[in-house]
């Protein structure tokens, strides 16, 4: 990220003149530390590529990945079809690019459901303590006890296949660890003097949770989320593979592997390309998560 000299001095000055400037400074300094880790940057590049791919899918592919061409089915990778064609003559590269939208959709939706629920339950349990803590943690334990894929299967079998149901199923099995993490952080933070100071000023519990506790728990939760992304993608792909996620002809990567697996010996590219896509994206999120964790290290305060 290139910044001009003027911007740089604005970002590094010792005396920020507004709250906005102060926040930009913190972000910039965090970025400077982050970028010293090449592996983490590689992860970020992969994730950004995924996002850009999803955004510019129409431009990159000039179609929608659904055009069939039975005459040209099962063609190997070539200049015309970068990743070859599948059993219905559809360009695999196109389908992977469009599939990235589905992947992002699933991952984004799960994140948006799981983080707030886990965070809220965790910090309330950790800060308030007592029987509230016990009840919330037992609920968390119950959800934690279910193996992710099996509960997702059961859920989808009950509600019927489809992306949204798959997302809901994944979210239900994923939120528990976040509550645990948030609770652990809240337990430590609760004894801090700045919390006592807030209480002695008359802050309500709600205010303390939202203004004081949550901001400090957020970084741990986000790091955990990024590291979890790989698992979420794989679970979604698993559901797709079993025909329980996105339905044909939707170019969801897991479903592509499933329908393509019979061709693995002679036309290896049909199931392998989507498999590689899943691998690379999972890796990217893992690397990014590792890098974020080093930068936002909760022990150091994440400054």
């Amino acid at each position, binding site marked *: 990220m290139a910044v001009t000299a003027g911007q740089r001095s604005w970002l590094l000055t*010792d*005396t*920020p*003149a*507004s*709250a906005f*400037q*102060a926040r930009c400074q*913190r972000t910039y300094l965090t970025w400077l530390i982050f970028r010293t880790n090449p592996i983490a940057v590689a992860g970020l590049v992969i994730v950004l590529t995924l996002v850009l791919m999803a955004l510019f899918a129409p431009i990159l592919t000039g179609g929608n990945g659904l055009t069939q061409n039975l005459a040209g089915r099962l063609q190997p990778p070539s200049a015309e079809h970068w990743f070859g064609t599948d059993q219905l003559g559809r360009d695999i590269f196109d389908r992977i690019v469009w599939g990235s939208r589905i992947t992002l959709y699933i991952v984004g939706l799960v994140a948006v459901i799981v983080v707030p629920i886990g965070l809220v339950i965790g910090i309330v349990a950790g800060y308030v303590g007592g029987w509230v803590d016990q009840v919330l943690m037992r609920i968390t334990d119950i959800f934690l006890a279910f193996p992710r894929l099996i509960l997702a299967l059961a859920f989808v079998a009950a509600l019927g296949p489809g992306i949204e149901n798959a997302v809901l199923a994944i979210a239900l099995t994923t939120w528990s660890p976040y509550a645990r993490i948030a609770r652990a952080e809240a337990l430590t933070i609760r004894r*801090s*003097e*700045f919390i*006592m*100071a*807030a*209480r*002695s*000023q*008359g*802050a*309500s519990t709600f*205010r303390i949770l939202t*203004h*004081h506790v949550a*901001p*400090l728990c957020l970084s741990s939760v986000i790091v955990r989320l990024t590291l979890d992304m790989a698992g979420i993608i794989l679970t979604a792909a698993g559901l797709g593979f079993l025909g329980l996620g996105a339905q044909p002809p939707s170019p969801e990567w897991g479903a592509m592997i499933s329908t393509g697996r019979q061709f693995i010996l002679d036309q290896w590219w049909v199931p392998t390309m989507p498999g590689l896509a899943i691998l690379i994206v999972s890796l990217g999120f893992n690397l990014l998560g590792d890098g974020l964790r080093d930068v936002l290290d909760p022990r150091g*305060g994440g*400054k």
Partner: protein
Amino acid sequence: MLSVRHLDVRFGRNEDAVHAVRDVTFEVGRGASFGLVGESGSGKSTVLRAIAGLVDRWTGTIEVGGEALGAERSKRFRREVQMVFQDPYGALHPRHTVDQILKEPLEIHRIGDRDDRVMQALAEVGLDERFRFRFPHQLSGGQRQRIAVARALVIEPKVILLDEPTSALDVSIQAEVLNLLQRLRRERSLTYVLVSHNLAVVSHMCDTLAVMRDGEVVEGMAVEALRSGTPTHPYTRQLFRAASGYDADLVASLVDDL
């Protein structure tokens, strides 16, 4: 202004209960400065926290401005009584800017003119607006403690409880912060309750003091009595002599179980 009678605090239950404060009684007049001196475990900080409403279970009577306090502290109480904590590094939220920290009490008590009041509070503690949007880790220990004092002042309380306010600061910074506290007390007719293990700090800041040990008040006196070296209780005398530095003969005469 502040009256504490037969204050008793226990932590924990039944046989494992720690009797942190036993039957403590003292009074502080309006505009006066009262010191609580003691070593660690004496219960002095617990007394302060009980007054501030940070202790769950206590018995006895605490009166501020003639009004007795119950189990909960009202918002009005919070406006009148504020606290400054010992650790400047821990008492400020690491992710809040100075501006946010100072606006917090104003927001809680729905007081207007927030920007003006923040600037005024900063000026009162000798910091200018350059500090307004810094984070705590960008401030020195002395600056953080000044922010803590500014935060206590911004809603214009009448009583300030000070828990070892300079113990974590360098000697030269301590002098500045103590001078600041004295000036503020004079200018705003504040009432102080100061807790410290440092007898010299208490003798400089306070009009009257009480010595605590094991949860009890062992002796109470005016600061002149301390200065003239006439404390009567042997424990106080011991603290007094220990305050002047290392002396091999003194150590030989120190008694652990007084």
